[in-house]
């Protein structure tokens, strides 16, 4: 039962790519270029860089860790902010309470966050989807109430302050432009790291687990170990976000891990596009802009956020980042209808169909 008439190209390199996939790096270069120019085109860098720039970057990094889990493992975690907060508390504890320099504090913070993520994974990896959501939400609140009460460790509601930005002689992160670039570097590294892991054999297996854990077990995969590893990895990313956060805020207090902060990151992820690693930064920029300027024209900022949130979920479930693809699909469909009406309707892609093809192409880069 062979079909000799088709010649198969055996490797990925031979696969045809869409125009987009081939030239999308140009888009990324443009985005990165704009991000690099940002400090030099804004009129008030001292406002725009910390309030919009750096804050968007760490919100984005944390949201990206959430999106990674959702997209490649199919789990929606509401504990990512908590993990970032634990990392931030780690940094704060080492620098304020133990009075140690940042180069000890940062690894301690990231380790603390990652280990916390691993523990969350141990508890929650056996559950799926909606349970996972609830359990991570509740675990986040455990830490919030702990952070609010544990005077000896977290200094309770007062929090730990001041957490000074590192001064490396050549590179002084107290300079806000320098700090912005450092945060940008962290975001780019996290993004590339997520992309790399997603495109690895491990990432491929994660997607298999997301689509059908039963089959993955039947194929000999120890599904739980993969899930735990993925959750831990995303905790690592969130922890990096936590480090940027703590140096940006110069202090750490329970507010960072409150329900409100959790919702902020969720809003960022959903508005930006919960399936898109880069889209979170759009969501983060929108949220920070709203945060800073919405009250100039409305008192009901939360209502506005909630309405945008619901509208996105209803009409653009792939978020802002997905709107382009949504429009393109609709356009393609119309063009196809126009060019060959009535031809082979069952082959026609529908708007609701997941754009898995795009995923595959994306991974080839």
């Amino acid at each position, binding site marked *: 039962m062979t079909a000799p008439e088709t010649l198969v190209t055996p490797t990925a390199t031979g696969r045809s790519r*869409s125009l*987009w996939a081939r030239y*999308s790096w140009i*888009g*990324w270069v*443009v*985005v990165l270029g*704009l*991000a690099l*120019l*940002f400090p030099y*085109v*804004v*009129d*008030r860098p*001292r*406002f*725009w860089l910390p*309030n*919009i720039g750096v*804050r968007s970057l760490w919100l984005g990094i944390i949201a990206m860790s959430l999106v990674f889990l*959702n*997209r490649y493992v199919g789990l929606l975690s509401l504990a990512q902010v908590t993990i970032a907060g634990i990392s931030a508390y780690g940094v704060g504890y080492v620098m304020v309470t133990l009075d140690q320099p940042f180069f000890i504090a940062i690894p301690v913070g990231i380790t603390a966050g990652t280990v916390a993520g691993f523990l969350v994974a141990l508890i929650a990896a056996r559950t799926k989807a909606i349970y996972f959501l609830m359990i991570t939400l509740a675990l986040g609140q455990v830490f919030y*109430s702990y952070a*609010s009460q544990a005077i000896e460790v977290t200094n*309770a*509601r*007062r929090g730990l*302050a*001041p957490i000074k930005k590192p001064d490396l002689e050549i590179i002084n992160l107290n300079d806000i432009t320098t700090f912005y670039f450092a945060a940008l570097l962290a975001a780019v590294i996290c993004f590339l790291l997520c992309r790399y892991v997603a495109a690895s054999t491990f990432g491929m297996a994660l997607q298999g687990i*997301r689509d059908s854990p039963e089959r993955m077990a039947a194929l000999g995969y120890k599904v739980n170990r993969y899930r735990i590893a993925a959750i831990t990895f995303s905790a690592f990313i969130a922890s990096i976000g936590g480090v940027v956060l703590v140096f940006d*805020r*110069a*202090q750490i*207090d329970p*507010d960072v891990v409150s329900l409100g902060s959790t919702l902020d990151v969720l809003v960022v992820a959903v508005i930006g*596009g*919960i*399936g*898109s690693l*880069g*889209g979170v*930064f*759009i969501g983060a*920029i*929108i949220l920070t802009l709203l*945060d*800073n300027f919405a*009250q100039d024209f409305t*008192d009901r900022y939360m209502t506005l956020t909630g309405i945008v949130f619901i509208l996105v979920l209803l009409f653009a479930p*792939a978020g802002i*980042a997905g*709107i*382009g*693809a949504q429009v*393109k699909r609709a356009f393609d469909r119309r063009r196809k209808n126009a060019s060959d009406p009535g031809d082979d309707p069952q082959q026609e892609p529908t708007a609701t169909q*997941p*754009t898995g093809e795009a*995923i595959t192409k*994306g991974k080839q880069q």
Partner: protein
Amino acid sequence: MMLNNWKGLVPTLAVGAVVVLGVTGCSTGGSGGDGGGDAGGDTIKIGVLATSEGNLAFGMGEAKAAIAVAMEAIGGTVDGGEIGGKSIEIIYAGTDGTSGSAQTQVKKLVENDDVDIVFGPVSGDEGEAVVQYALTVPEVTFVNGSASPVGMTLEGAENFFRFHGDSAMWMGGLGDYAYDEKGYKKIYSIAEDYSFPYDNAGGFFSEFCAAGGEVNGNSWVPVGTTDYATIIAQIPADTDAVYVGLGGADAASFLSQAVTNGVDLPLVGGSIAVDTTALSGDANIASAAVGTITGGPVPGAGYDNPEWQPFVDAYVTQPDAFPSPSIFSILYYNSFQSLVLGLQEVDGDLSDGHAGLRDALGSLDWNSPTGQISMDENRQAIVDNFLIEVLDEGGTLVQKNISEASGVTQGTTVYDRFEGCP
């Protein structure tokens, strides 16, 4: 939910970035183009931080009422006016009472709106964050709103002024009064487990214990505890009074359950246990609250300072004002009026890094609606404090002024959670 897209991402990211840059560009003309906020200019910009969301959402209304009272007295409005030939522009930024939101908004005021003076914030969490920020922008002058953690003026921020007492000072005089006048020897303490009640209870018990009193137990309850039945059951039988270091809903919860659980001990309230905002709710707390003594910066009924009534009269004409001024409007008023006095003294001259203004503020001494306000070397006010008893006068609760402690000064202790006497 699995939603995936790659194709549209890059262009939208690019579009998003362009939009952001566009917005930034636009704002050049909008907010910063006039450069009017500079010290040498003719406009003095004051940025006001107050809570407009969350449980303290009414803070903004109270702040505006207080500022309006002060500004209208010099011919201005809630949005500004003129002092010493300089025009005053007041910009408001709402927070939700959390440190994060205060950080965001104070940075926005200073860096985007380019204010010369920051006025506020409301809550203690915010206050600690704002002081930390003040240390990083020495060119801006900060006047506190109503945030009361003890530590704020001990941080050494040369540009930070507080024209009201801290939360330990709010208990000034009450410890002696409870021991000497009321004759309480053993007090059981129920207080929320965070920094404000530590300071507040610390202020009370340090005085009470020094007078010879005894603490026969502490319950530090998490903020948001609603069910006090079990806590109430812990109170030892030989207790003379119960100290209630709770605020807002927790205080209302406690008081209503004290009724149903048949507590008939006299209460000593923390500064926010029975203030106007708690009593304006409908919680059925009357019978428990009666007889409570408390201390704080808000005078009770029968206060006879001649400055007081004119302030109240001016306050109640403001839109959305409460029947009587809350703790927030009083503190915001005293603080803002202090700022106005300071600005008047230097004719709005902010040159030389606000040196003149800061000297003026640091040596201010005036008779406020709540008594004399003068300053110590930490730029912290020395104030009068009020002792109040809740009385039932014909079915309505009245907070009666029983005594004032004048010239209360700040201590140097930042209190932590303590057992027994602090």
